């Protein structure tokens, strides 16, 4: 028996506990609402409908592509922001995380002006290479990457700033080039942040709606992701929309819960970052 007053952990202060409970309820109740209104008897029928499966497949494929691109471009950017002291760094950081705060629909319109058929760069993509992003699956990936990558960048940059850089020094003195050090020492040291940032970015991409429908449009099979299908489903068939949202929630929830236990779990990794 552990006597809490003497040997154990301090008890949770009552106000903290109550407020935490309120916060939990705040998140749990809307989900409960969806579950409550879900047409369970018809759920299977909605889920296995071709439209739903097509949208689900497209959502998964696009969000994974967006996450992959975020890693390839976002991790180096985070490294530069964390490690290279250059004038205007603050401006660059703000610029690269702006898409987190601007309304996604505005982001979609901005993407038009940049990458659309008449856009700053898009017109040349069209003229020289015949590449048109709007109304294509690639356009969906671009829109999702645009809104999702900042989540990875800020998570990874914070981890890079917190990590003990002397570990990298140690690697250098052992004969490791800066690139070898980056791959074999730096990246493994911030692995929890890479996973957390990746999951956040992926979840954001999976739920992306505004930028996607604005920039890439909505067409089943090419650009209609699950959130778009849900939104348009609300117009005519709210029941189907609820079932589809629950699928989206279930997938994200499973990934978040699963990763948490596996990677963030015991706190050993987190100590590394602390």
């Amino acid at each position, binding site marked *: 028996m552990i006597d809490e007053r003497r040997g154990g952990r301090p008890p949770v202060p009552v106000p903290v506990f109550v407020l935490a409970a309120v916060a939990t309820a705040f998140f749990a109740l809307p989900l409960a609402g969806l579950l409550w209104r879900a047409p369970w008897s018809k759920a299977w029928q909605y889920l296995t409908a071709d439209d739903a499966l097509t949208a689900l497949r497209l959502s998964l494929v696009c969000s994974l592509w967006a996450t992959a691109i975020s890693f390839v471009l976002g991790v180096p950017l985070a490294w530069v922001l964390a490690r290279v002291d250059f004038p205007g760094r603050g401006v660059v950081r703000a610029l690269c995380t702006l898409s987190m705060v601007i309304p996604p629909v505005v982001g979609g319109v901005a993407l038009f002006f940049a990458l659309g058929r008449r856009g700053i760069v898009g017109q040349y993509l069209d003229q020289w290479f015949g590449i048109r992003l709007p109304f294509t699956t690639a356009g969906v990936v671009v829109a999702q990457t645009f809104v999702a990558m900042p989540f990875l960048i800020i998570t990874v940059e914070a981890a890079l700033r917190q990590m*003990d850089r*002397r*570990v990298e*020094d*140690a*690697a*250098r*003195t*052992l*004969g*490791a*080039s*800066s690139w*070898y050090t980056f791959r*074999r*020492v730096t990246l*493994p*040291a911030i*692995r929890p942040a890479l996973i957390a940032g990746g999951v956040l970015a992926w979840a954001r991409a999976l739920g992306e709606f505004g930028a996607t429908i604005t920039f890439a449009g909505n067409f089943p099979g090419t650009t209609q992701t699950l959130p778009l299908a849900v939104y348009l489903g609300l117009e005519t068939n709210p029941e189907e929309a609820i079932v589809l949202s629950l699928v989206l929630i279930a997938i994200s929830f499973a990934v978040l819960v699963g990763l948490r236990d596996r990677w963030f779990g015991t706190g*050993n990794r987190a100590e*590394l970052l602390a």
Partner: protein
Amino acid sequence: MSLEASIGVQVGTLDLRAELTVADGELLALLGPNGAGKSTALRALAGLRPIHQGHIRVDGAVLDDPTTNTFVPPEQRPIGVVFQDYLLFEHMTVLENVAFGLRARTTPKADARRCAHEWLERVGLASMAQDRPRALSGGQAQRVALARALATDPRVLLLDEPLAALDAGTRAAVRRDLRQHLASFAGMRLLVTHDPVDAYALADRVAVLEGGRIVQSGTLAEVTAHPRSRYVADLVGVNLVSGSVEGGVLHTERGAAVVIADAPNGPAFAVIRPHSLTLTRETPAGASSRNVWEGIITDIDRLGERARVGIEGLLPLTAEITLAALDALALRPGDEVHVAAKATDIEVYPA
């Protein structure tokens, strides 16, 4: 075959200008207080911080020389480092840690692992090869860090406060261990420490770094016999007075006069041992051969049978007297005292 360095680095308020030479097979301890520039010097030697003036050469090869724009990056220097907190790679096993340097130099994986295993056997940790660094004790982690640094076969080994991270209970045992392992490395070794006990136990020669300058160097016995800095004097526990000798009297900058037995004129240091001082409340009568200074007691530390008394005055001193004498005089901080010393008890040597 040696390490020759003339390190000039300016960082913040630190202006480091240090000349260091380490012969093949020699272990030099760089001893000094915190902030003296020891770690900066070590980082400069390792190539983790470019120098602003001077040069760094190992076996004649230039590693860093701003005048010729030469800078060999750390990964290409024949220098291994054992860092203060050992800085093992937490995501790798102990074996992978030791094999890291070889792998980074594109040694095939199997060869690197075999070599790493041999090193672990040498430091007596072969049984922990597959453990994570987290599972190691401080002393074990230090041995892994040593094996990791030596596995790449460097010419120079740098050790940054290798015992500072350990608790007092294990430090002595680990120090003995380290001494044994360091003896098996034939190259040049440089140990950075603030603890003279480390220097005494491990080093052939000591260089004292204070305020960015090497103030003294030689064997530890030489250095402590004739302190040339406040830091070394404090380590040894003596009063160090610097000034200028003129006709058998040493005059300090603040204007105090110390009568000495005999010494040539010119700048000099005087060592006054605390137990050679006597304290009185009144002016001691007669005794013309004695030095007598006035001062005010600032603090009193009782140490077993004796007490150390700090005195502030024209000549700040620490005196060591018996508890009996202390009680007889009923001294308290703030009291005015007279401090007396025989000229023959004062050791003087040229600065």
